[in-house]
């Protein structure tokens, strides 16, 4: 089934319409399609008021609801569905608000021969005639639609193809009750004879008079409404009166308008789609057009709105957002935990390695200490041995040196004696401490005292570093001089 197809609900049947051909059924087989229902005006409360044109649609909706309860006669104990049509005047809006109570709605659909779960669009019938204005040419007309059916009747005023007002009049049932005529008979009179006095026999004059009396009052009310709309919308007059009465006209109805200065063209509403009646065709075209984007006035008073799919709710989106973020965070958490776990494992491995290394180091350190101790002992032994070797070495070096000492001592003695002999000096004492130092107390005549210094000089010449005298005494013509001789220099 095409998406743009609609279903119109009626008491006995449903009409599925795809813009081409209406299909009738006794059951509501396509609840998924856009479903509409025209509610009789007797169930609908309406109230008009003017308001500043500075308000937004939301604010207007709120105001409309308040005014409907306060001034429109709504029962605060009941639940209503309220909607409105907004007309833009010069500096304000004219709001025509409508309300349908839940009770009335349920009461109306209770008579239907099939179960209704969803009604997408519930509307007053008088709005449907806008669907008849399909060209700009047709819109250049001010029209009055007079709908007459068994249970409902009204006059709907259209200015340039747009609805501007309506007036409820007596339905056929109501007229039947007032005139005492059977409904079937009444319909027959109206369809066949209309309001033409010449169509009625003499015995039917009373019947006609009664019908005319009711009708003239209804037309008066309609004309009153038209005149009221003149002031509001600048309505110039009524060009055409269209009779929506099961495809029939009402002969002689023009006579009701002439007293008010109206001379409209009177036409029956005859256009129909396939086997649908003109009334039904208008409803089908209106709902189909509206569902497919036509810019018609609309008032939706349904109490069985189609529940949106869950995913279209903002709450569902919050849920999805929460879930997506939670999943994302959970994944992030898993990733972070995984990474942390990997890091922890690495840490454990490293700790194991460090522990192992420490043990190894400890073991090696112990081994090192042991080896070091062994080496220290060896070094100690080595040192002791080297010391001993050194002692032996020294001993072996010293032994020949001691052997040489006597030679050195003898040489020193010989040197001293040789120089002593050279200068024929005498000595009173000789002290040779060792091979390095020598003391001699020289004696010389005063005239030969110079030889003492020569003696010393010669010894120096022989290589003795230190030859010196500390005290020289002269006694009895003899010089006594103590000479110190040493191999090394004395500091």
């Amino acid at each position, binding site marked *: 089934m095409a998406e743009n197809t609609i279903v119109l609900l009626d008491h006995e049947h449903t009409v599925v319409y795809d813009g081409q051909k209406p299909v009738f059924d006794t059951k509501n087989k396509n609840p998924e399609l856009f479903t509409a229902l025209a509610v009789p005006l007797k169930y609908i409360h309406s109230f008009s008021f003017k308001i500043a044109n500075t308000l937004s649609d939301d604010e207007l909706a709120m105001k409309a609801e308040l005014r409907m309860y306060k001034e429109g006669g709504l029962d605060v104990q009941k639940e209503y569905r309220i909607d409105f049509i907004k007309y833009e005047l010069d500096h304000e809006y004219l709001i025509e608000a409508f309300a349908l109570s839940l009770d009335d709605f349920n009461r109306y659909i209770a008579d239907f021969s099939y179960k209704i779960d969803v009604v997408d669009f519930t509307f007053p019938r008088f709005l449907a005639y806008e669907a008849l204005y399909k060209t700009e040419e047709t819109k250049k007309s001010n029209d009055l639609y007079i709908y007459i059916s068994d249970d409902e009747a009204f006059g709907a005023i259209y200015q340039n193809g747009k609805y501007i007002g309506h007036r409820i009049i007596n339905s056929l049932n109501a007229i039947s009750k007032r005139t005492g005529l059977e409904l079937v008979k009444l319909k027959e009179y109206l369809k066949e004879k209309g309001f033409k006095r010449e169509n009625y026999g003499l015995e039917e004059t009373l019947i006609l008079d009664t019908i005319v009396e009711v009708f003239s009052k209804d037309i008066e009310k309609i004309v009153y409404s038209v005149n009221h709309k003149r002031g509001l919308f600048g309505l110039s007059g009524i060009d055409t009166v269209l009779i929506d009465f099961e495809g029939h006209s009402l002969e002689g109805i023009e006579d009701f308008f002439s007293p008010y200065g109206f001379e409209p063209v009177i036409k029956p509403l005859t256009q129909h789609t396939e086997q649908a009646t003109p009334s039904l065709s208008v409803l089908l075209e209106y709902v189909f057009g509206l569902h497919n984007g036509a810019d018609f006035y609309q008032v939706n008073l349904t109490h069985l709105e189609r529940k949106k799919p869950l995913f279209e709710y*903002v709450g*569902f989106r919050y849920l999805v957002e929460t879930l997506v973020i939670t999943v994302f965070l959970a994944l992030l958490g898993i990733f972070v935990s995984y990474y942390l776990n990997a890091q922890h494992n690495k840490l454990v491995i*490293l700790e194991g390695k460090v522990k192992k290394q420490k043990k190894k180091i400890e073991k090696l350190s112990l081994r090192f200490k042991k080896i070091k101790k062994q080496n220290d002992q060896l070094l100690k032994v*080595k040192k002791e041995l*080297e010391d001993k070797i050194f002692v*032996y070495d020294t001993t072996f070096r010293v032994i020949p040196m001691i052997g040489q000492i006597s030679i050195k001592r003898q040489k020193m003695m010989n040197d001293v004696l040789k120089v002593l002999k050279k200068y024929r000096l005498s000595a*009173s004492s000789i002290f040779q401490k060792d091979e390095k130092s020598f003391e001699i107390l020289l004696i010389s005549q005063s005239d030969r005292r110079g030889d003492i210094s020569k003696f010393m000089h010669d010894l120096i010449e022989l290589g003795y570093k230190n030859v010196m005298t500390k005290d020289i005494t002269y006694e009895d013509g003899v010089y006594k001089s103590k000479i110190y001789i040493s191999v090394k220099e004395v500091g």
Partner: protein
Amino acid sequence: MLRDKFEEIENLDSRTKTGIYIAIPLVLFTLFYFLFLSSTLDEFDTNRKKTDALQKELNKPTLRLVSAKIVRLKKEIVKNKTAIEQDREQLHFFQHKLDSKSFLFISKKSISLFLDKLLDNSLNKGVLIQAITLHNENKPYIGNLKLKKVIDVNASGRFLNELSFLRSVEKSTMLIKVENLHIFLQETDKPLFSFEVKFYGVEK
């Protein structure tokens, strides 16, 4: 039930709805951060520091150094053992060498032989021995050598004889040293002289 809640939300004004859209991630992220991420990041940081410290510990050259030291020490031990062996051989050689030098072992017999020789020489050189004093010393000298004994000799004789006598004394095969030689020359009599003979030797 859920649909009713959704309907309630649907009736909220658009500003509140947008606010909730923004608040949901903020709240979830905040909860996530404070309940999980914050402590996890702390733990991560602590683990990282621990890992760095452990890695640093592992990278320390201690093990390598100790191993290298052990290797070096082992080589040194081998070297030292060889050196000790060589030293022992050398020491053994020195001991043997020292043992072969019999003159280093001062005994009563060797001293009496020395004294006999000294007296013989004094007779031969015309030196009159006036006194001989023997002192036991046993004082460390150099190396293994000790000053074992000291003999003080007082004598008189002609100067040249005295010197000749001294030379004969110094010709001894024993390790001796003549010191503190005093010669007093007198015009009227033969010169007096004294000297010390120091005997060096080793312990047997």
